[in-house]
């Protein structure tokens, strides 16, 4: 790699500071960083694998060279000095305590070495982070990123705020990819039949084969990859096909867009993506479409942002609130369904019928025969149809990704009939440069393999052995192929089966490109030299071309040469701009002309009411299993279920009763002959008669993923990859312990306290209502009672001066936060971001089960009303930085105190760990290191730590700090310039990650600050403020826009309540 310009921005704090471009030799610096970091280590460890590898890494840890590397990587590596002690165990610890005894906490530390550069890279300022723009390629469209890099180590991944589509939002998976990069289980080198080989050796044999196959046009050479996201990759393949016309490329992801593609093909004659413009929609109808729960839904970031734009309750010029209304008909309860103003629980197999019926109701087709609907369903259908018709052109119907083509077709037809096309929905080229029907392709590939036609099978970044449909028996077929190759960042199930395994690169390690869901192109630029010298798919594919040694960088640059014009003499100007901006302007797709005339295919007959169907869904966090080894994603409880680690057989309470099981029972699920063992877990609002299994767990490898949950692929077949009826359930009698961070206390329904006495309510939810923790109203009620959040008992905030003591005055800055409950869609992006920013430890299933999760920020989910058809509320909960902080008063050593700017700060190194503060915290947001949770051993994880945040040791209390490290950075900048900190200059990690701007942070003493304005809104209330804690974090009460036809007002100001 030579002569690569990399544009980057220096930032005071994220989002601020002037940007300027400069050039520097990434190659040189990469060599530097590499030399000083992992190169040597790699040499030392060459030839050691698995456990042995890590053991010897530990031995290494002592050696000065190693400390050198770490020191270099960590100019201010921050961790409590005690860490080596706790590492080396008891004797040392005792020794340390001896040393401590009598000394004033500041102890005699060991000599620390300094390892300066030999040649320092020019524009590196150690201790000042640099931000690089790149993108995270994901099957459903790339997520454009701005990555924080400290001494050339990426330490924080966030959305690119300037990007036209996502505008800075991110999601848990995107946040998690950072840990994926530093995953110690990543594949370290190339293997051939289990023996270590050099990359060169592979290239040699691969190219030799190609040479001899050239004559036959490459017949017998197959490439199997995950969904291709890179235009350059497509271009490379296109070129390759010229010389290898008979070579085949098959894409397969277990979670794919076949239904959508099939429908669009039928409607437009060509594959198309549908882009929905929710900001223009008054009525949104989701047909099992989970578009608010994360990157798993194409275009999530934009959809979520637009959806919440219309729920911020800012008065439009018309004087109206122009609030949208969301209807959801869905099977598995999702955050989308829980955010809906009206939700209908439907079995997945009923949705196609429902879609057709809806189409008929709005005059876009004929109703399906033989479907019978419950009264609720009929009522729902009728009023939805009415609402839709009333707002033609200002409404939109969204089909579910996990629904068959017919639902997509119906959606196309309805949107067409209502004249939404071009207004609330447009159809464009596909983000995938080479769209295909993946399941069918895989079938034919397997057929070829079994037929012995396949001589070379190169598997790129896919794990079919684990995730291919069970009926295809992919692994057996693999045995029939002469030579099999697997390139991947992990040596996974497939990598262990194939002849060759090539250790692949992470997207932060290699050059590539990708399109965001709107088509805007982003160049994926690496931020660090491959940690383990991995290789990218581009390099493999390039071998098929006449210039096989062209680097990925050059290939990518060539692809976009046209979009990167020179400026005068500066040939690299355009290219640098692309890298600096993180995307190529004006490359978004334009709408296809002409709406689709979709003929809705006849839907299958309605399944028998008493039969039980199985629904397969990608996991919210580990997706199809590729992120199963990312600790954060496993530990952060999934939305809705609050299930951390594990997956489960999710079903409604009624179904649970029907099959005579109770939660935690291990069930044997049999689906046309195939069996899987799955523990049962009840989900409020789940459709009756269907069981949802999340894919992606039950991995065999990985110290995180291994042994977590069960593998749902075992019963997933190619003919019914979405859902399948006719399952039989048997209790095995075993019991499985879950790590559910919040139960709904169904062990003890709220018969005695709260609720309607029916015993079907969640006591937790009822209490939340009675205690004014959740406050909401319908739109009409809100109009009549703008101050509803403060009406009613226990909802008024005591006046600070009624106290016997004078209240403490905060005259300068006063930091505060406002969280909009209307905008929070409970997607967990903020939680994941907090993990990354604050070096929060992963504690593992057992500790989570004991209730010792370390998350500083959590999303509380309260289920209101009958758990069979609940209304839910998401409430992000972190330290409230109370002005009368109960925790501070009881700390005997003053380890938690208030700063003059009103931060409730936690001084880890002063904490002795009495845990009194946690007991006295009404919000229970303090987290305690009961054991040594922080990982001080694993070197690759050390590289990931944020150097500005102390790594907490055992026996210390910790909690949300309002990202004090960011505040202080901003302060220093401001002080240097003798000015006040500007509004928006300090952005907390959670705020930065939130795709819907639900979280706003700032100085509440600054009259013009956003947070001040939000806090002045009448909806703004403090949780538990009536016990006079005076929280600095407040919430904007929820307002729902219900359809009076469907439900009477549910809020507390409803006629029947008041």
């Amino acid at each position, binding site marked *: 790699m030579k002569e690569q310009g990399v544009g980057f921005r*220096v930032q*005071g704090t994220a989002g*601020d*500071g*002037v940007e300027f471009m400069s050039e520097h030799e990434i190659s040189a610096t990469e060599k530097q960083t590499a030399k*000083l970091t992992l190169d040597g280590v790699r040499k030392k460890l060459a030839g050691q694998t698995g456990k042995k590898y890590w053991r010897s890494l530990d031995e290494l840890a002592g050696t*000065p060279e190693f400390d*050198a590397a770490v020191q*270099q990587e960590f*100019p*201010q590596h*921050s*961790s*409590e*000095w005690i860490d080596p002690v706790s590492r080396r165990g008891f004797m040392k610890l005792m020794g340390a305590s001896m040393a401590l005894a*009598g*000394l*004033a906490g*500041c*102890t*005699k*530390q060991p*000599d*620390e*070495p*300094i*390892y*300066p*550069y*030999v*040649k*320092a890279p020019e524009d590196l*300022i*150690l*201790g*000042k982070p640099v931000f690089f723009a790149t993108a995270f390629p994901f099957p459903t469209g790339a997520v454009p990123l701005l990555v924080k890099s400290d001494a050339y180590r990426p330490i924080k991944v966030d959305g690119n705020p300037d990007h036209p589509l996502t505008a800075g939002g991110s999601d848990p998976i995107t946040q998690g990819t950072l840990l994926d990069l530093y995953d110690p289980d990543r594949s370290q080198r190339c293997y051939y039949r289990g023996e270590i080989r050099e990359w060169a050796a592979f290239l040699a044999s691969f190219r030799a084969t190609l040479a001899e196959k050239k004559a036959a046009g490459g017949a017998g050479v197959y490439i199997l990859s995950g969904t291709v996201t890179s235009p350059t990759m497509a271009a490379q393949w296109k070129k390759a096909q010229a010389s290898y016309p008979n070579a085949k490329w098959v894409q397969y992801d277990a979670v794919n867009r076949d239904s959508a593609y099939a429908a669009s093909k039928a409607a437009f004659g060509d594959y198309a993506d549908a882009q929905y413009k929710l900001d223009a929609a008054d009525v949104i109808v989701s047909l099992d479409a989970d578009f608010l729960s994360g990157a798993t839904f194409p275009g999530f970031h934009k959809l979520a942002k637009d959806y919440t734009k219309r729920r911020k309750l800012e008065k439009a010029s018309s004087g109206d609130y122009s609030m949208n209304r969301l209807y959801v008909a869905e099977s598995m309860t999702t955050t989308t369904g829980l955010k809906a103003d009206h939700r209908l629980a439907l079995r997945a197999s009923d949705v196609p019928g429902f879609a057709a019926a809806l189409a008929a109701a709005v005059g876009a087709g004929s109703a399906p025969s033989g479907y019978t609907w419950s009264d609720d369903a009929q009522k729902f259908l009728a009023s939805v149809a009415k609402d839709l018709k009333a707002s033609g052109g200002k409404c939109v119907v969204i089909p579910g990704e996990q629904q068959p083509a017919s639902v997509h077709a119906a959606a196309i037809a309805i949107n067409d009939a209502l004249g939404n096309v071009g207004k609330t929905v447009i159809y464009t080229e596909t983000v995938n440069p080479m769209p295909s029907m993946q399941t069918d392709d895989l079938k034919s590939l397997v057929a070829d393999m079994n037929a012995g036609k396949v001589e070379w099978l190169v598997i790129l970044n896919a794990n079919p052995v684990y995730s291919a449909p069970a009926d295809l028996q992919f692994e057996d077929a693999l045995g029939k192929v002469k030579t099999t190759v697997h390139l991947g960042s992990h040596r996974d199930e497939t990598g262990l089966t194939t002849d060759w395994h090539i250790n692949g690169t992470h997207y932060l390690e290699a050059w590539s490109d990708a399109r965001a869901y709107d088509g805007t192109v982003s160049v994926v630029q690496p931020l660090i030299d491959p940690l383990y010298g991995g290789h990218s798919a581009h390099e493999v594919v390039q071998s098929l071309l006449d210039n096989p040694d062209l680097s990925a960088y050059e290939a990518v640059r060539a692809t976009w040469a046209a979009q990167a014009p020179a400026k005068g003499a500066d040939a690299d100007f355009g290219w640098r701009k692309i890298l600096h901006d993180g995307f190529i302007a004006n490359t978004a797709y334009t709408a296809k002309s002409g709406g689709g005339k979709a003929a809705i295919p006849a839907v299958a007959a309605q399944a028998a009411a008493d039969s039980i169907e199985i629904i397969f869904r990608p996991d919210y966090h580990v997706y199809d299993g590729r992120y199963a080894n990312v600790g954060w994603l496993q530990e952060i409880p999934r939305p809705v279920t609050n299930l951390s680690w594990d997956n489960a057989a999710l079903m409604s309470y009624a179904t649970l009763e029907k099959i005579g099981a109770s939660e935690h029972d291990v069930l044997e699920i049999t689906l046309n002959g195939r069996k899987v063992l799955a523990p049962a877990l009840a989900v409020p609002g789940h459709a009756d008669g269907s069981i949802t299994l999340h894919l992606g767990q039950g991995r065999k490898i990985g110290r995180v993923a291994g042994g977590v949950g069960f593998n749902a692929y075992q019963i997933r077949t190619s003919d019914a990859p979405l859902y399948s009826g006719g399952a039989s359930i048997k209790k095995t009698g075993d019991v499985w312990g879950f790590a559910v961070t919040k139960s709904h206390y169904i062990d003890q329904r709220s018969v005695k306290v709260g609720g309607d006495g029916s015993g079907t309510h969640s006591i937790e939810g009822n209490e939340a209502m009675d205690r004014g923790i959740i406050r909401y109203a319908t739109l009409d009620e809100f109009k009549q009672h703008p101050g509803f959040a403060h009406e009613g008992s226990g909802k008024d905030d005591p006046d600070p001066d009624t106290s016997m003591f004078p209240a403490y005055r905060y005259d*300068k800055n006063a930091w505060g936060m406002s969280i909009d409950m209307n905008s929070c869609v409970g997607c967990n992006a903020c939680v994941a971001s907090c993990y990354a920013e604050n070096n929060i430890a992963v504690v593992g299933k057992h500790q989570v089960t004991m209730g010792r999760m370390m998350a500083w920020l959590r999303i509380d989910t309260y289920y209101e009303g009958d758990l069979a058809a609940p209304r839910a509320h998401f409430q992000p909960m972190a330290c409230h930085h109370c002005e009368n902080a109960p925790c501070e008063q009881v700390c005997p050593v003053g380890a938690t*105190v208030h*700063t*003059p*700017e009103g*931060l409730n*700060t936690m*001084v*880890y*190194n*002063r904490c002795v760990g009495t845990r009194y503060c946690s007991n006295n915290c009404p919000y229970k947001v303090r987290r305690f290191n009961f054991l040594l949770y922080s990982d001080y051993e694993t070197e690759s994880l050390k590289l990931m730590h944020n150097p*500005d*945040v*102390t790594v907490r040791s055992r026996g210390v209390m910790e909690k949300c*700090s309002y990202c*004090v*490290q960011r505040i*202080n950075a901003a302060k*220093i900048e401001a*002080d*240097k*310039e*003798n*000015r006040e900190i500007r509004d928006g200059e300090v952005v907390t990690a959670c705020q930065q990650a939130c795709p819907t701007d639900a979280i706003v942070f700032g100085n509440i003493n600054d009259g013009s600050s956003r947070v001040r304005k939000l806090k002045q809104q009448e909806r703004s209330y403090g949780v538990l403020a009536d016990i006079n804690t005076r929280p600095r974090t407040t919430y904007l009460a929820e307002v729902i826009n219900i359809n009076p036809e469907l439900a009477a007002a549910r809020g507390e100001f409803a006629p029947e309540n008041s």
Partner: protein
Amino acid sequence: MAQIFDRSSNALARMSLVLTGLIVIALGVTLDQLQRSPWVTRQGQRADQPVPFSHKHHVQGLGLQCQYCHTSVEKSSYAGIPPTRTCMNCHAQIWTNAELLQPVRDSWATGESIVWTKVHDLPDYVYFSHEIHVNKGMGCSSCHGRVDEMPIMYQQNTLQMEWCLNCHRNPAANIRPTSQIYNMAWKSPSELSPVWCAASDVKKGVPTAQSVNCTSSDPASGSGNPQLASLHLNPARLALISGAQATDAPTSVRTPQPVSYTKFTSQEALGSFLVQHYNIRSPRDLSSCEVCHR
């Protein structure tokens, strides 16, 4: 039959009682001293370094600027340890075969770092920023002592929390004009050597360095233009500031015009003047925990 104890034991018993008391007191005093002793703080200890680098020689003798090696001291929390390249800038030409410099040449040849031993070593949970101190008028020598007189580098101060607090609670006692930051020999003003300072009219949004001019020669005595008090700013930082300031401080890059100079003959007077004009935060702010611990 005789007594159990003989006469002397009375005295003995009482003595031992008194003694126990004394021992307890002595122990307390010892520990109190121990925690502040060089054995704990490393104060004044000279670690053995791969190269016996003499700051005295390079700073006093050759007159090297601090920033020549510690490049990021104004820009980052981390002052910066010079890369081998910096040494080689000169030592490629001079002392090319001096025995002492062998490690440097090796490092240059092999690309392996020179392994220094950290002299000023704060606990890892302490977040110290050179950047802000230097920009707000804390001279190098205030903390590091007369480095220019140290043949071998050592730690001048205890670097203990109480030491930090001493200054954070009363910055005026140590603050100096930013023009004097790198002046190792800087002395607080006195009757004999007074200092004249003038605050420019523009306050807000002007880098500390530019808001105040100080000189040691009486500007009234027409001894010509007083040297401007300002840290030298590289274009980038200027751009950054001006850009950032686009809205509320268009004047930042303009060199402020000295107005009326005031004469200072004591550190207290100068200190309080600078604290006011450099917008130093209040002691309460500066001694708040989160300033150094996160």
